[in-house]
């Protein structure tokens, strides 16, 4: 793909997608919960903007709805709910100690290269201007997975989960200009329900296990009998 053959709008889409990738990395190395949530909100905003631009350049009006949905859900509602939870549970002063921060970032880079390799056949096949972004979208999914693995706070894991959904939405956006509307709506509904459930869960975890650090969830394992009466 030769960059000058694209319009400036399409170049802007590439720039935005690179910034989305950057937010994924920023999430990965963010020890403070509120900053993490803010970065996540930024990622949602960037995604919504990307969707709107794709809608504009490729004349797909239904993508405006997806963009709006993303903006409301990912950039506003879910970050707002998470922030509210964090403040309510008084977690905003806690910082996570991220072990091997640099190693994880380098692992993230390796993942990006892996994703590029995996999605090469797709990109060869596609004719869309956004085809080069498919690798980035898969990288977002896998980087979120890395986030869930490397962070120990329940809230961070939820952010990772939601960022993963962001990556999936992104993948659908750039490879096929979005999924059929009914599927998009279904996914949005699922995410909404999931975010409410996560909120309920934080409370339950706090009430019963005292801390939202998932390292303390170690009662169930193959070696320990679970005796209860």
């Amino acid at each position, binding site marked *: 793909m030769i960059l*000058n053959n694209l319009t400036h709008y399409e170049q*802007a889409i590439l720039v935005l*997608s*690179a*910034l989305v*990738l950057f937010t994924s990395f920023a999430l990965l190395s963010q020890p403070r919960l509120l900053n993490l949530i803010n970065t996540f909100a930024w990622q949602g905003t960037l995604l919504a903007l990307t969707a709107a631009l794709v809608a504009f350049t490729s004349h797909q009006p239904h993508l405006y709805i997806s963009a709006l949905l993303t903006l409301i859900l990912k950039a506003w509602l879910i970050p707002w709910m998470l922030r509210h939870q964090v403040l309510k549970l008084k977690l905003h002063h806690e910082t996570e100690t991220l072990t091997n921060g640099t190693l994880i*970032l380098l692992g993230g880079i390796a993942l990006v290269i892996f994703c*590029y390799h995996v999605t090469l056949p797709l990109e*060869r096949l596609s004719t869309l201007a956004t085809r080069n972004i498919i690798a980035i979208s898969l990288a977002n999914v896998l980087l979120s997975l890395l986030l869930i693995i490397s962070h120990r706070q329940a809230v961070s894991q939820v952010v990772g989960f939601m960022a993963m959904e962001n990556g999936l939405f992104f993948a659908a956006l750039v490879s096929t200009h979005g999924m059929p509307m009914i599927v998009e709506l279904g996914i949005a509904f699922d995410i909404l329900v999931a975010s409410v459930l996560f909120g309920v869960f934080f409370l339950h975890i706090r009430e019963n296990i005292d801390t939202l650090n998932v390292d303390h969830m170690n009662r169930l394992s193959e070696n320990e009998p679970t005796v209860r009466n």
Partner: protein
Amino acid sequence: MDHNLNSWLLAAIQTLLFVAIAPLLTGWIKANKCWLQNRSAPPLRQPYRDLHKLFHKEAVIAGQASWIFRVTPYIILGTTVLAAGILPLIATDLPTASIADVIVLVGFLALTRFFTALAALDIGTAFGGMGASREMTLASLTEPAMLMAVFTLAMTASTTNLSTAIDFILSQGFVLRPSFIFAILGLMMIAIAETGRIPIDNPSTHLELTMVHEAMILEYSGRHLALIEWAGQIKLMIYGVLIANLFIPWGIATTSHPTALFWGTISILIKLFILGTFLALSETLLAKLRLFKAPDYLSFALLLSLLGMLSHVILEVGPLTK
């Protein structure tokens, strides 16, 4: 390119201009910082006065110092001026363009660093050794990051020659490149670390626990110190020019026509002053990092440079289509 005496003269003037403006840039940054922090600023010519004052002071040299210690200030200034000489400042069509290579530039800077560290070790004081070890630790992270950032650009232009790269970018017109955003940010962070500015090092303090660069040159005085300080100011400007001319090359003269040269000079001055203001702003907003946090900062810079390179490969080139 057929180069006559005139163009060699132009190259020499450009280098002289470079060396002459460098203290002014430092003065400008200092003045901006003062304004931002509500202090009364020293005049812009203050760095010149400082240099002038140091040149007229007697240079005291420790008894154990070997010839390395004496010769280092000259080597530092010499290599820095050479590095400044190859960098296209106001025009690209110059005879020095043929050696204006990124790797040469990095090599010159590494040579400077090597001799600074050597001289710091030469005296055998605790501070010198500490500063040298810190400097080398940081350098092991900044150098790959810097090369990555510049290679991102080199990959776009398919050359490591700075002049050719600038010409290529100019010929492409205005193109939004995701890789450049990362590369420019990465390069800025590296520039800050390399020139010993906040948040990695603080040029205006001699606090023993935090010094890096200052610890190495603690034993120098008089004209030696003046030479090193001046070299430091030129180095800062080298990074400024690198960022300004590589990523926003518009305005630079591609011919040796006087009007073009005039606009080239004006534009680089404006770009440098804007960059200086940015630096002053960031130094005002940020606090100095603890030394053991510096690797985090630098690995973030490395990450940005790597992302720049990846987004070039993935987003801008992509697979070869069937």
